[in-house]
């Protein structure tokens, strides 16, 4: 029984700046939830309010069925892993992990049993006698996680734990964290600005922006059905292409999206109903780079040929990113590496319009 729930939670700093503007969030027992968003979106503040390191200006936070607004961090039964590890530099790895248990007056043999168990899970048993300064970044992060695991708390809180690691180690530790969660099944709230971390780790992702929640959903939900232009642009790498367009009548009574005089895209029949009511309006077309690829003779319904002049080619090995300009808007396509593309020449492409998104320019809502 360790759900976490935020109800109309507000954080206002002195001077009236609102970092978190009344968010509602329900996190189920054993769930792994990732808060993701750009710097200053309020994700870390939310986590710190759950931890009890920041006071809550308004609303309520519940952990395991209790309101914890006025409960100090040590009595909330949570454990936190910090971005810079925050290991106690004068203590050995064992003492670092045992510190919380010693303060809570656990018997010695129980402390040893728990630390050994956590060290085994994290593969740091040979390091228990070392001081933090004798550890590498990845090892330090493991110890920080070990310190959280030994406490066997209701909730794990991670505050950008992988940001200080180099790219390769980050991917490795990401897998470790997922593995640990699969082993211990503790409810986890994880903050990151890296959408790939969010997608790979989370049961559900919470996308935040300017102190409000833009969308909550499974990684697949967010990827395939973003609710707003912000989410559509934030999730996925490279980011989704956005093109101003207008909805108008196409040939034979169909609907079409006009991006420019030369680019008029027929709306697939399955979407015609949804987009029909926006006829004549200025909208924004969203199409992910992976839904814009090399031209295929045998198309599928909803596939449309687009010819664009190549600007930059970025070979990545398993795929090649090709950048174009449509008017002044940059567009990226993800093409087969066998495709021949030279800067300056016109490349025929397929746009998979079954995967397109249409957004209102003012509100950014995906329609």
């Amino acid at each position: 029984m360790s759900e976490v729930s935020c109800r109309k939670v507000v954080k206002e700093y002195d001077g009236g700046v609102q970092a978190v503007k009344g968010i509602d969030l329900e996190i189920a027992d054993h769930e792994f939830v990732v808060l993701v968003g750009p710097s200053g979106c309020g994700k870390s503040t939310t986590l710190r309010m759950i931890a009890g390191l920041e006071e809550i200006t308004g609303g309520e936070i519940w952990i395991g069925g209790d309101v914890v607004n006025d409960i100090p961090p040590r009595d909330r039964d949570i454990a936190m892993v910090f971005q810079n590890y925050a290991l106690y530099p004068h203590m050995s790895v064992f003492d670092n992990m045992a510190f919380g248990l010693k303060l809570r007056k656990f018997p010695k043999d129980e402390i040893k049993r728990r630390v050994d168990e956590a060290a085994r899970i994290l593969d740091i048993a040979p390091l228990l006698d070392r001081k933090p300064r004798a550890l590498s970044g990845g090892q330090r992060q493991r110890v920080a996680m070990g310190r959280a695991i030994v406490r066997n708390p209701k909730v794990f809180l991670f505050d950008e734990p992988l940001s200080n690691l180099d790219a390769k180690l980050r991917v490795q530790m990401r897998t470790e964290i997922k593995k640990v969660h699969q082993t211990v099944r503790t409810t986890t709230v994880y903050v990151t600005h890296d959408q790939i971390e969010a997608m790979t780790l989370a049961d559900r992702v919470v996308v935040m922006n300017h102190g409000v929640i833009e969308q909550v959903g499974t990684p697949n939900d967010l990827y395939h059905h973003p609710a707003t232009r912000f989410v559509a642009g934030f999730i996925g790498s490279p980011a989704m292409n956005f093109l101003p367009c207008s909805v108008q009548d196409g040939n034979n009574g169909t609907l079409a999206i006009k991006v420019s005089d030369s680019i008029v895209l027929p709306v697939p029949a399955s979407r015609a109903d949804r987009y029909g009511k926006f006829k004549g309006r200025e909208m924004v077309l969203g199409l992910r780079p992976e839904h814009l690829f090399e031209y295929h003779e045998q198309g599928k319904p909803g596939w449309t040929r687009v010819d664009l002049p190549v600007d930059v080619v970025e070979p990545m090995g398993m795929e090649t990113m090709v950048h174009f300009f449509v008017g002044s808007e940059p567009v990226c396509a993800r093409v087969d590496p066998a495709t021949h593309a030279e800067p300056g020449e016109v490349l025929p492409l397929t746009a998979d319009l079954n995967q397109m998104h249409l957004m209102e320019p003012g509100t950014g809502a995906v329609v």
Partner: protein
Amino acid sequence: MSATTLGATRSAAVKRKTSLHRQRLWALWGSYTALAIFVVMFLVPPFYTLMTSLKSSAEISAQTGSPWLVHHPTLENFWYLITYPNFQTYYLNSVIVTVLTVIISMVISIMAAFSLARMGFWGSQALSTGVFLTYLVPSSLLFIPLFQIVGMIGLINNFWCLVLLYPTLAVPFCTWIMIGYFSSIPKELDEAALIDGASYLQILWKIFIPVAMPGIIAATIFAFTVSWGAFLYPLAYLYTSNQMVLTVGIISDLIRGDVFQWGKIMAACLLASLPPIVIYAFLMDYYVAGLTAGATKG
């Protein structure tokens, strides 16, 4: 044409390298010269003290030969002082006053620095500045008004008044040093400890004090020096030999009228400098910066 250009570039590069080498050489020479002057300036007085302390009164007053050399070394001055009851009293008084001053100053300044650096209460910023400003008031201006206060509490000619007064000199600066050290400890460390279940006192005792040990040692050395070497306050407040501390005792006891017992004075100075030397040597081993390395990603 291109060959010429290449040659020119290469010779320029060689020239640059030589001049870099030469610059480094000059820097080294400069450093050695400055250090040599420094060493001579600082070691000549102790050397002279040592030489004089090893001479008999007769040799000193004879004034023959170089004053820098000892012809008939003797330990009689040292032996005289060690067996001289007054000197023993001064020494003991100095030790009592200093040990208590260091303990009192460190307890107060560590607690003050922790609250000022970390607890962020209303006015803590102004208070930190205030603490430092107190330090800027010269102690030589304070001793006259303080004389009245010490008189009111009846501690004139009582070395316990020094235990009361020295912390007022040591605490502001020690607090200031400790605020600096405590502020350099990453905030996440106390947050991690808070979540681990520590109270503020436990955070101070189990995290801050061990981590800030280099700072505590620096502050301790300062408090020790203030107390051990202070001259003005004991000169003003103490006048019988059973209450005197070393600094005042030596000059008031070993200079009688216009008779300066140079050999004994020098020997007393050396004996009085022994504790600071021993303490510095002992603490310097622990005075290693970079103890926080590895706590967080720098």
